[in-house]
């Protein structure tokens, strides 16, 4: 009757308005995803995350290939990948490229991952292991399942790196929805991947973590190392949340697995 007719008018107008807004939204940029907030009003990145790509084998684009241990057959072979480096091959200085090629040729002996050494940055982020973000107002901790590696991102009380380390010294800040992490104070011991891509102790990494959906982050890292590269370069990839029930890190204390590899030659005969 009269009430129903009145409601019909309102409903129709609402639908028309909705269509108008939808059209307006489609033609302009999709709005950025807004992550749930922590108590201090910042995007909440707490959780367990993992990359899903072959960057840990080789950050550059690469075809599939046999692995360095032929006895492992297909299990130890290198899957192909589109690469995570933006803009083509890594911009090595000529002498650094020669060193990278030496690293690759001797990777079984030289790759620090094989010896269960700390992964460095950004390699820890895309290792084939989950990592957990524990975030409060002052500290954002990144705890890696691989070798129990730990990064502390200082959001407050920021200082310069007091000494060189494997995981560097990280100072962080929020730029809207993005966590920007500036890391210096690296030693020259870690690699970027299993292909021998490397850095010096002049390495400077700026990372950006931005939520793109409830269960994914966009991860970008700009690498600057004037001793090794002719210019800064950038990598990017999604990070995926572990959504299975009771997801947790499981110990990967690999020191025990590599002792005979490292010290076996010193055993009493």
């Amino acid at each position: 009757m009269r009430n129903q007719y009145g409601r019909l008018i309102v409903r129709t107008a609402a639908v028309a308005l909705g269509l108008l807004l939808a059209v307006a939204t489609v033609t302009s940029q999709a709005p950025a995803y807004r992550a749930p907030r922590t108590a201090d009003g910042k995007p909440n990145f707490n959780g367990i995350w993992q990359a899903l790509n072959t960057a840990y084998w080789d950050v550059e684009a690469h075809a599939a290939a046999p692995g360095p241990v032929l006895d492992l057959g297909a299990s130890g072979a290198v899957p192909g990948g589109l690469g995570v480096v933006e803009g083509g091959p890594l911009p090595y200085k000529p002498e650094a490229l020669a060193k990278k090629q030496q690293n690759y040729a001797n990777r079984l002996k030289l790759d620090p991952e094989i010896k269960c050494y700390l992964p460095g940055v950004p390699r820890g982020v895309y290792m084939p292991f989950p990592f957990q973000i524990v975030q409060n107002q002052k500290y954002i901790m990144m705890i890696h399942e691989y070798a129990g590696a730990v990064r502390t991102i200082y959001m407050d009380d920021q200082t310069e790196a007091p000494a060189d380390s494997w995981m560097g010294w990280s100072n962080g800040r929020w730029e809207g929805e993005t966590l920007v992490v500036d890391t210096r104070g690296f030693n020259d011991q870690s690699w970027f991947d299993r292909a021998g891509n490397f850095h010096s102790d002049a390495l400077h990494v700026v990372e950006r973590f931005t939520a793109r959906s409830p269960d994914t982050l966009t991860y970008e890292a700009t690498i600057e190392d004037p001793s090794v590269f002719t210019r800064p370069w950038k990598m990017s990839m999604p990070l995926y949340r572990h959504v299975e029930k009771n997801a947790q890190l499981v110990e990967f204390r690999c020191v025990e697995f590599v002792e005979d590899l490292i010290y076996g030659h010193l055993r009493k005969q």
Partner: protein
Amino acid sequence: MTAALLVPVLAQGPQAPSPTARVDKTTAPAKAWKLPRTPDGQPDLQGFWTNTTYTPLERPKNVTKEFYTREEAIEIAKKAAAVEGEETEPGTIADVHYDFTQFGLDRSQGGFALNLRTSLIVEPPDGRLPPLSAEGQKRAAERAAARKRMGAPTDAVQNQPLSVRCIIMDRAGPPMLPGAYNNNYQIVQTPGNVMILVEMIHHVRIIPLDGRPRLPSNVRQWMGSYTGRWEGDTLVVETTNFTDKTAFQGSSENMHLTERFTRVDETTVLYKFTVDDPATWTRPWSAELPMKRTIGPLFEHACHEANYGLANTLAGARAEEKKAAEAAAKK
């Protein structure tokens, strides 16, 4: 130099009386103290802590009382600090590689809570480990025999202590017990987790508070599998799923450990743990020690990556054997 080492840094500032903690009370009157809370209402355990102590796990044989007087406790700490100080005297063996006052931060150099207890063990009341069960005695004998069969500590890396191998430190446990230096911890809390970072070997426990079950019984871990819950203002953490490799004080892999963390004043978290392991001891036993606020930040301890000491220890033993063999061949 040694004079400076003799004076331990005592707990600073007024403290609320705490009958269970028996941490040293200063002469200043206690101010009313309010337990701080995280934004989601958990008691705030966050910050940097040290559980450095001169108090032994077990009550010394010539002591029967539960508490020293304050004066006695200070005297004991001074004597122990003097021993550490002696080790840095020029001409002593410790002078060869390191200046102990620069490296290692011995106990007299960091702040620590002056503990009036004569032992960390509070149950049983005699302050000593309970007797081993029959199974515990048997396992202790088996382990001793196995160690003998392995040979000398320098024969192989696997014969060295777990800490020297950079696999795990006592400071991580659990339970968390201090070593001779660097007993630094950092606690960060979120609505779902309490994270405890140990500076030595960067051990981390991320203790879930969501009531989930622990890992399946066939998944054993060096630090076990742990879950936490708040009982009033005390964080209770239960841990099972140990391996038989840590063997805390001779325990079995079926040890059930309960830890309790209670913030008792501005600068103190009281840490108490109970070991329940009928396969080893005839009864459960408990120990208690304070964690004292210390200054951050924590630094990366790349123990395994820089473990030259272990390689050199083994290489040195092989070199000595070679020298001895060559000398014997010449005779």
